[in-house]
């Protein structure tokens, strides 16, 4: 069992007033708060270990390099990658997807197809639009069923020999839908295509085993996992990453440079040009250890209880319309209230100290699909409680009265 009260004491930010009310933070799908161990790790790095990595022969450079690489090994273990060179550090999930999409510009040609889905975040749409614009390939979109599940039959129809890559989210940030990722991967591999999985919403809530699920690429962000901002991961199978052209050129990513010919470095450095977010990467290890110590299955269990409780309590509100009622959902509830604009609800809830997300959640095609201007989204983390849901529900009712 998880002791939420004890966990809350480890998050200094949570203990503050917003608009003279105790903060209720329900915007975890956008970014989670940071435990003291992560803040301490950042602080410790800048106070004691700061130096550039992978180049200096001096003590501090070695120390920083060792710690940086230590996080790579921890990430490898966390998602069960085969080799640590398959773990690439990026700025975030968006950056990871762009890295792959950029590489595919020269790997694809006219007649090739990329498949994404209707539930994707803009960061898993726009890089592929840019990719097909340049490569001449075609972008296909898997539609959603009314309940927010993917239309698997339609996906099977879209798949063909022309399909070169499928890029799809593990868990939807706007609907909470958990996609049947193993099934999607198996279907993709059947036609000989590769698959990239946007795991930004999944890694904070579910166990991810890239070898077992047989993912080709898997992307996620540290800041949604109680870690620092500006750190992301791209996992890729070694053979695929070796075939993928480098994204950015610069220092660190080269073996030899001359004006006639430059030889790129081996993995993972080939994709890590320039000085990375060293402090952030090192502190990310503290966040991963924090999650591992609690047990991801315990975190998921706690959050499932919150989703269930929130859904029950919201159901009582008159005019409630849930957006996305997929069979399997994680860590968030997305809804509207009849006659009210999500923006108005968000403003009034903020006045009552409740931080929720309103709007299109950077997933405009989904909003179009459901014909709504946006939704109100409550998304949960390990430190949230049922009492906070009660406060939020009371605030929603008050907002409803004010706006009626």
């Amino acid at each position: 069992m998880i002791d939420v009260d004890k966990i809350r004491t480890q998050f200094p930010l949570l203990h503050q007033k917003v608009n003279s009310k105790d903060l209720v933070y329900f915007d975890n799908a956008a970014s989670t708060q940071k435990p003291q161990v992560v803040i301490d790790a950042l602080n410790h790095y800048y106070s004691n270990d700061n130096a550039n990595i992978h180049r200096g022969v001096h003590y501090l450079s070695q120390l920083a390099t060792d710690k940086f690489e230590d996080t790579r090994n921890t990430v490898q273990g966390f998602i069960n990658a085969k080799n640590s060179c398959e773990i690439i550090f990026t700025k975030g999930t968006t950056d990871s997807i762009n890295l792959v999409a950029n590489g595919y510009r020269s790997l694809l040609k006219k007649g090739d197809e990329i498949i994404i889905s209707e539930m994707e975040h803009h960061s898993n749409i726009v890089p592929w639009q840019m990719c097909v614009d340049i490569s001449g390939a075609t972008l296909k979109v898997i539609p959603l069923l009314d309940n927010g599940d993917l239309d698997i039959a339609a996906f099977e129809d879209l798949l063909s020999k022309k399909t070169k890559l499928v890029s799809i989210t593990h868990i939807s940030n706007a609907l909470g839908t958990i996609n049947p990722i193993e099934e999607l991967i198996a279907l993709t591999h059947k036609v000989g295509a590769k698959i990239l999985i946007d795991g930004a919403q999944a890694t904070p809530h579910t166990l991810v085993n890239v070898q077992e699920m047989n993912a080709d690429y898997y992307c996620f962000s540290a800041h949604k996992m109680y870690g620092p901002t500006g750190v992301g991961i791209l996992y890729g199978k070694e053979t695929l990453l070796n075939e993928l052209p480098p994204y950015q050129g610069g220092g660190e990513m080269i073996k030899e440079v001359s004006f006639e010919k430059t030889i790129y470095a081996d993995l993972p450095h080939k994709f890590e040009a320039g000085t990375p977010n060293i402090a952030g990467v090192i502190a990310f290890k503290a966040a991963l250890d924090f999650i591992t110590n609690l047990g991801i299955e315990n975190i998921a269990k706690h959050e499932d209880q919150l989703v269930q409780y929130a859904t029950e309590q919201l159901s009582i509100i008159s005019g409630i319309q849930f957006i996305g009622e997929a069979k399997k959902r994680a860590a968030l509830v997305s809804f509207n209230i009849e006659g009210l604009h999500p923006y108005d609800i968000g403003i009034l809830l903020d006045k009552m100290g409740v931080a929720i997300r309103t709007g299109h959640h950077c997933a405009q095609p989904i909003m179009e699909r459901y014909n709504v201007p946006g939704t109100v989204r409550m998304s949960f983390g390990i430190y949230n409680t049922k009492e906070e849901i009660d406060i939020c529900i009371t605030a929603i009712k008050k907002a409803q009265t004010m706006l009626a």
Partner: protein
Amino acid sequence: METIAAIQAEIVEEFDMFEDWMGKYEYIIELGKTLPMIDKKYKIDENLIKGCQSRVWLHTQHNNGIITYTADSDAIITKGIVAILIRVLSNQKAGEIAIANLAFIDEIGLKEQLSQTRANGLVFMIKEMKLYALGYQNK
């Protein structure tokens, strides 16, 4: 014609009567509900100021150097604030609108409504209102 500064002072005085945020927002919501703002034929895409979350339509007319604004929004709080902006800037001389200092927004505690993250189209609306006035003035 009341000056822009005089109208702003009135609004600041009205908002001073409210002791807490609730009163203030109830008043804004009231303004948003009661004001018929824009002729339906002007609620078109060309007049749409796209914000991230709430949408604002702005229609502008001019007559002998006097500019009239009508507007609408799909969110009620945005609509209320739009109503306040129109009360201040509509039916004024183009030259006055172009140089208007809108410090009252801060004074009535609505500065947050104009912050970047709100992305409610209001920042762009003010910009559009002033640009139109400036453009007309320079004709």
